[in-house]
């Protein structure tokens, strides 16, 4: 089970960016083949996926490390060139391009992390109690979540929980068939685009069956297409 999950997570990381450009007829060119631009496109897809997916997706360690390194390089480049300071027209323009792109990439990185933190905060009890979810978090995200959970628990205890009867003090009660712990609802509807034909029909669980053909855009339950998103055949939009 764990192996399968790990595999799925790896696939998910590797394929999130899968062929962003094949789905974009306007952007077919040699320029795109470049590794760097592929990385950037992966970041774009990650950001979109994290914003639209109900679940917390695996943290893209490698990609984020690479991107952050490159951001650092660009910042150094800007510093060096601003200090040397002879401002010919073209050097200024170069700097302008570099700075503009830098801001754009930083926006993406921020957006990605914010989307994650939003979900992590919302489902912190679920994260704290579930090792599978923790494996998808970065070190700092995990540290943050644990500290936040502890602090909230202490605060609630101090403020009102301690004056309630012991049977009502739990924050993770499952009595009455009701979960107190909020977990992501994987059945939530998501918008997807099919990148590659998926053989066979997809059973939607209520008798409806659909075919996933390249270029199709659907709104359906995340649970139904989760596997195909991981395979890279389907993309969240």
């Amino acid at each position, binding site marked *: 089970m764990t192996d399968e999950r790990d595999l799925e997570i790896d696939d998910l990381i590797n394929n999130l960016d899968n062929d962003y450009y094949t*789905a*974009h007829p*306007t*952007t077919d*060119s040699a*320029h*795109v083949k*470049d590794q*760097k*631009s592929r990385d*950037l*496109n992966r970041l*774009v897809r990650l950001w979109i996926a994290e*914003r*639209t997916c109900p679940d917390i997706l695996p943290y893209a360690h490698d990609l984020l490390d690479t991107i952050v390194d*490159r*951001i650092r390089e*660009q910042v150094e*480049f800007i510093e060096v060139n601003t200090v040397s300071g002879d401002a010919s027209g073209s050097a200024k*323009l*170069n700097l*302008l*391009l*570099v700075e*503009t*792109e*830098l801001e*754009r*990439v930083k*926006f993406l990185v921020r*957006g990605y992390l*914010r*989307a994650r*933190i*939003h979900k992590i*905060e919302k489902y912190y009890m679920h994260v704290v109690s579930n090792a599978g979810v923790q494996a998808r978090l970065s070190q700092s995200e995990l540290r943050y979540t644990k500290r936040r959970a502890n602090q909230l628990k202490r605060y609630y205890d101090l403020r009102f929980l301690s004056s309630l009867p012991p*049977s009502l003090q739990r924050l993770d*009660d499952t*009595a*009455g*068939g*009701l979960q107190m712990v909020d977990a992501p*609802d994987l*059945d*939530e*509807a*998501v*918008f997807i685009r099919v990148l590659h034909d998926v053989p066979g029909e997809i059973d*939607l669980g*209520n008798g*409806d069956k*659909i075919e996933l053909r390249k*270029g*199709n*855009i*659907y*709104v*359906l*339950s995340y649970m139904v297409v989760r596997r195909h998103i991981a395979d890279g055949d389907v993309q969240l*939009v």
Partner: protein
Amino acid sequence: MALPAKQVGTFVPSEISFLAENNLVTIIPRQAMESVALIGGMTPSMRPMRRIEVPIWVALLLKKQSRCNIVPPQWLSEENLKITYDAEVSNMTRFSANLPWEWIEVGELILGSAPDDLSSPPHVIRNLLRDIREVRQAKARAGLKNLNESYLQLDNVGGMELNEIRSFVTMAMNRLRIMQSTREGVEQQEDYVEPYNQEDDDDGDDDDYNLPQESYDDSMRTSKSYHESYDTARLSSRMGSATANERSSIPSVTSVAGTRHSPAGTNSGPTRNRSLGAFQDPTYTNDNDNDDSDDDDDDMQMDENYLNAVNSK
């Protein structure tokens, strides 16, 4: 609040536009420029009049400084847009495949920043884009009628168009799904009523489990008894008011007895009018079992008299 509420589960238009700016567009540089190392790769080196492809945001930046001309994409020509419009109108159930994913955003960006590079007058292009957009919006709206909890197909929809309906569609589908599952759950529960209750009784320490059921029953009972008490309260208040009216009318009747035949215009106070009204209804003072309609009539009459008095004053 890591994410503002308006950005949860959807994108704001500026973000969609930001994404569209990553797409490539052909430009004709007006001056030479070395290639620049960016995070997303090198920009191609430029030589005047030599067509190259750059991301739209680079093109817009250069355009702003008049260092290049933008070559509008094929689909954005007047001719192609007209074809697209006809295609859109001829089939009202599907989106045509003539437009790229980010057609609204790219069209907006180029119209906004490089209207002089278009082959046709900008207002012509703008109008065509708007017409196409309206046709497609009508289709999207019509499509919402088919919304169900399992799926919705939207082939060839644009990024911005998708984002416009995203919040509504996901919210509606999630609600429908919850309603559907509740219905199924209820049907199942009805089959299992007996064992369900028995289990509760058997488990001594399962009080918590029992709680929702009980409180539900309680609330039912309460609401029933509430209705009863409400009815009696209404009844009593009606009786009360009737008696109160009667009581107040008795002394006034006696007090106005002398002026009973004087015209209404000479009456000078609400109290007197009130009592006069009461007096004009001979059954009222004698009969405790007045029904509502009598009561209302009486009230109306009193009001009328009061108004007359005030007006004449």
